């Protein structure tokens, strides 16, 4: 265990969904400005700007790489470095880990992390084809018709084979997430979703049905990281980074040796050890989804299901509003929407929001400690981050 050296001091986000008239730049500056205002900081207080990679428009991504945000938000001759960090869906965790290291060593004072993308406004087939390249080997996998829904499906199949998890239990994850999204004004889908609707939706890639496959969305989010001592001066509600564990288990999923667990058991062990906290201390689980099997894999590894199988635990309602272990309370990518590398950032920002006490109708009362998980590409890596209101 170690004392936290970094904290998040402000968050910002714009609603996710289909916003064809809202440019990536507009969403980026609005969410970044919201994060600065939330922290009570001005653009001149930021020295490092860290934009994650954007997928829909290569021109916008080039703008992000070449300091456009510094120019748009009045950081010229104030910011010392604009650097892109990109790990796909894992970027939430990797950017936080990099920002934590920068403020801990003093290489940076305040880091503005941001994401904006518009994958939701791509033509649907273009979206399918884009995500058939992100971690899918062009030479060894694509010729077989492999694609992102098949990734989720094949992980589900192996997980179900090893754990006896049922199709109803997978569907229950979608229902639980939607109950949270109904309370989230930034979510793409806010109408009630029933088990019957999930199980009655069109089969896409067995065992996954259309309601179990995430929908691409336009969206943006941002957060500000400072050193722990600085954070105490900046805000009343710092969220401390208490521990992080992670493991890379493949590039192409055909090379993973343990798809039913990925690297989450190893990552959880390190994150808990570093934080000095354990499963019994966690009040909110911000698990990266995109497909229903992944929060189950994470919840098993995190030991958050009171000795039950994760599927049975979710199906019993324990992760829904009012349950003992609130899970992915923004609704996840299955309900808030999958914004590219930002799907995980929205999940992470929601964990900050809960610990800051700013989650509105879905606020988990008494939430002090949270755990976040993330993964990129075809679940190439497994990240676990432990967060706390207490240093």
């Amino acid at each position, binding site marked *: 265990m170690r004392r936290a050296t970094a904290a998040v001091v402000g968050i910002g986000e714009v609603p996710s969904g289909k916003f064809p008239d809202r440019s990536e730049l507009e969403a980026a500056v609005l969410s970044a400005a919201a994060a600065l205002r939330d922290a009570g900081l001005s653009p001149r207080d930021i020295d490092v700007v860290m934009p994650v990679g954007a997928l829909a428009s290569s021109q916008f991504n080039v703008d992000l790489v070449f300091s456009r945000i510094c120019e748009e938000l009045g950081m010229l001759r104030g910011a010392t470095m604009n650097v892109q960090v990109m790990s796909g869906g894992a970027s939430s965790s990797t950017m936080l880990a990099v920002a934590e290291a920068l403020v801990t060593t003093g290489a940076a004072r305040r880091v503005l992390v941001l994401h904006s993308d518009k994958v939701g406004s791509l033509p649907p*087939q273009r979206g*399918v*084809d884009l995500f*058939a390249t992100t971690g899918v*080997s*062009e*030479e*060894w*996998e*694509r*010729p*077989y*018709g*492999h*694609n992102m*829904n*098949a990734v989720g*499906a*094949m*992980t589900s*199949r*192996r997980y179900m*084979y090893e754990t006896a998890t049922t199709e109803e239990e997978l569907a229950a994850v979608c229902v639980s997430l939607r109950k949270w999204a109904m309370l989230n004004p930034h979510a793409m889908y806010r109408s009630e979703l029933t088990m019957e609707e999930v199980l009655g939706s*069109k*089969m*896409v*890639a*067995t*065992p*996954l049905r*259309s309601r179990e*496959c995430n929908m691409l969305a336009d969206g943006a989010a941002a957060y500000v990281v400072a050193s722990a001592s600085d954070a105490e001066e900046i805000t009343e509600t710092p969220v401390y980074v208490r521990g992080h564990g992670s493991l890379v288990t493949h590039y*192409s*999923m*055909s*090379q993973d*040796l343990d*798809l039913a667990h990925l690297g989450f058991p190893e990552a959880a062990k390190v994150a808990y050890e570093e934080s000095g906290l354990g499963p019994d201390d966690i009040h909110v689980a911000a698990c990266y989804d995109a497909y229903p099997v992944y929060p189950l894999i994470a919840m098993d590894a995190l030991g958050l299901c009171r000795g039950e199988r994760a599927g049975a635990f979710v199906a019993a309602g324990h992760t829904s509003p009012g349950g003992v272990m609130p899970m992915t309370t923004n609704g996840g990518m299955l309900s808030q929407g999958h914004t590219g590398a930002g799907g995980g950032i929205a999940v992470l920002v929601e964990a900050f929001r809960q610990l800051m006490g700013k989650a509105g109708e879905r606020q988990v009362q008494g939430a002090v400690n949270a755990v976040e998980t993330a993964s990129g590409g075809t679940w190439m890596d497994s990240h676990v981050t432990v967060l706390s209101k207490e240093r």
Partner: protein
Amino acid sequence: MTTTRPVPTPSSWSEPFWAAAREERLTFQVCGSCGTATMYPKRLCPTCLSDALTWQDAAGTGEVYTWTEQVAGPPSGFEDRVPYVVAVVRLDEGVQLMSNIVGPDAANVQCGARVTVAFETVPGTDVVLPVFTLDEAPAGA
């Protein structure tokens, strides 16, 4: 006939794999320094970084590690293949690869099912893909 289906673009070190596939042989690399078996082909041995990699024919048998039947929403180029079965196969030599399960009973596949390699030419090309067929229908199927 033209196809929009994606086909492999071999590298200098993977070309022998595809040439062998055209001869209906499934091959993998073995490291001359440390003996590591490697699938898919690498430029260097991922265990010891030696470039002394040699080719060996696989028996062509193994088991299904996991699978899915894609029934809707395929990537471009696979519209007229739907439904098709994508699978990760663990060869008896201990290496894994992505492939398709083909044949009339392909959808009867299960995790752990025994499979044997077959070879399929991508229509309109000279590309031959190693694919797999089920050894026997599972009991009760």
